[in-house]
């Protein structure tokens, strides 16, 4: 097994889940309605739990313990895409991101259920089932609000156009694409992106939202190699605040 390749793969997925999990948790107590407050909080808990399981596999492969990698790394050491670190903005952007991101991560884990890396395949089978609730939730709201009033449609359309370049950054290729595919660990970002575009198109076709031609969208890359926006560091500072004040704190 190609260790650097598999570590890179695990880190980027775990980091995506951790950072978006943290962003989702920022809706706790702030949701536009109680149900959404609970939904985003629950999805935050799922995502952070799933990132912990992935960091635990990394630990078994010789990396530092989960809390250390989650709380003690510098921004430039994170491999998440820029998309997940963007501030929540208003609910329309959070919802659009939730839809675009969770459609992608659900397909990613589905692909990983047949990975030759057995431990990851087993965990992916489990996570795939959980993410179904996330995609059901996203699709329900996108379909409803994407066909509701001029305001809801306009808001989602504006957020969609803003989000797409960042969303495509989820599929920034790794230097190990070939190794991962050859060893049957992961079929690769290109295949994932094709499947994602198809699925996104299918859902949006049931709304009044317009998907711009894919080839007109400029891709926001960099996250996978540690080049982040100005929004990541404040998030990390907040996430690790308690640990940095008192490293021995328990709760």
């Amino acid at each position, binding site marked *: 097994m190609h260790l650097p390749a598999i570590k890179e793969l695990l880190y980027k997925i775990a980091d995506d889940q951790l950072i978006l999990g943290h962003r989702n948790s920022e809706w706790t107590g702030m949701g536009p309605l109680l*149900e959404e407050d*609970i*939904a985003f*909080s*629950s*999805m935050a*808990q*799922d*995502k*952070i*739990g*799933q990132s*912990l*399981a992935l960091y635990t596999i990394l630990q078994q492969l010789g990396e530092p313990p989960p809390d250390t990698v989650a709380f003690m790394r510098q921004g430039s050491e994170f491999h998440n895409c820029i998309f997940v670190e963007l501030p929540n903005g208003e609910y329309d952007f959070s919802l659009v991101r939730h839809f675009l991101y969770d459609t992608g991560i659900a397909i990613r884990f589905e692909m990983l259920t047949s990975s030759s890396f057995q*431990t990851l395949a*087993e*965990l992916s*089978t*489990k*996570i795939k*089932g*959980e993410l179904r*609730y996330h995609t*059901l*939730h996203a699709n*329900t709201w996108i379909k409803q609000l994407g066909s509701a009033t001029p305001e809801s449609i306009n808001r989602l359309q504006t957020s969609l156009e803003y989000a797409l370049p960042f969303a495509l950054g989820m599929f920034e290729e790794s230097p190990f694409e070939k190794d991962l595919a050859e060893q049957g660990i992961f079929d690769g970002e290109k295949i994932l992106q094709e499947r994602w575009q198809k699925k996104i198109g299918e859902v949006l076709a049931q709304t009044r939202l317009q998907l711009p031609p894919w080839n007109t969208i400029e891709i926001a890359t960099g996250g996978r190699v540690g080049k982040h926006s100005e929004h990541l560091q404040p998030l990390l500072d907040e996430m690790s605040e308690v640990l940095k004040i008192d490293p021995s704190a328990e709760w």
Partner: protein
Amino acid sequence: MSEITTQRVYELLAEVSDPEIPVLSLVDLGVITAVTVQGDHVIIEMTPTFVGCPALETMQNEIRELLVKNGINKIDIEVTYRKPWTSDMISEKGKQALKKFGLAPPPSRQLFIDLDVLEHAECPRCGKTNTELKNTFGPTLCRSIHYCNDCREAFEQFKPL
């Protein structure tokens, strides 16, 4: 001290309840996937209901505590996804206990193809399906929120997974 057997360990584990749903034992919940006894060494394999389940650590502590109290000191608990948990792993006894507790048991996951299955959950009070889905997310990761139009009260369902 009597010899430790797999059966004895299962009997003890049946006394440990889910911290979030106290009427359900870990065995009936289906999270214990294997028990191996080698002399005085007990190896327990377990798997969480949800990957992000915060009760997992409490469950492990309670297992250890109970086994130690019963003279078993060499314990290894391994958390694995080799046999991932599904809601179909809740035993029949467990499903009845959930219902009595006021929590609708999960429908078979084979039926869970889209939201429609969740739309009209069976009310644990009146047993009828004149109900509405309010939220696929609830007070814990494993529960959804519903409303019974006949009882005019909200209830929760253990989610199919």
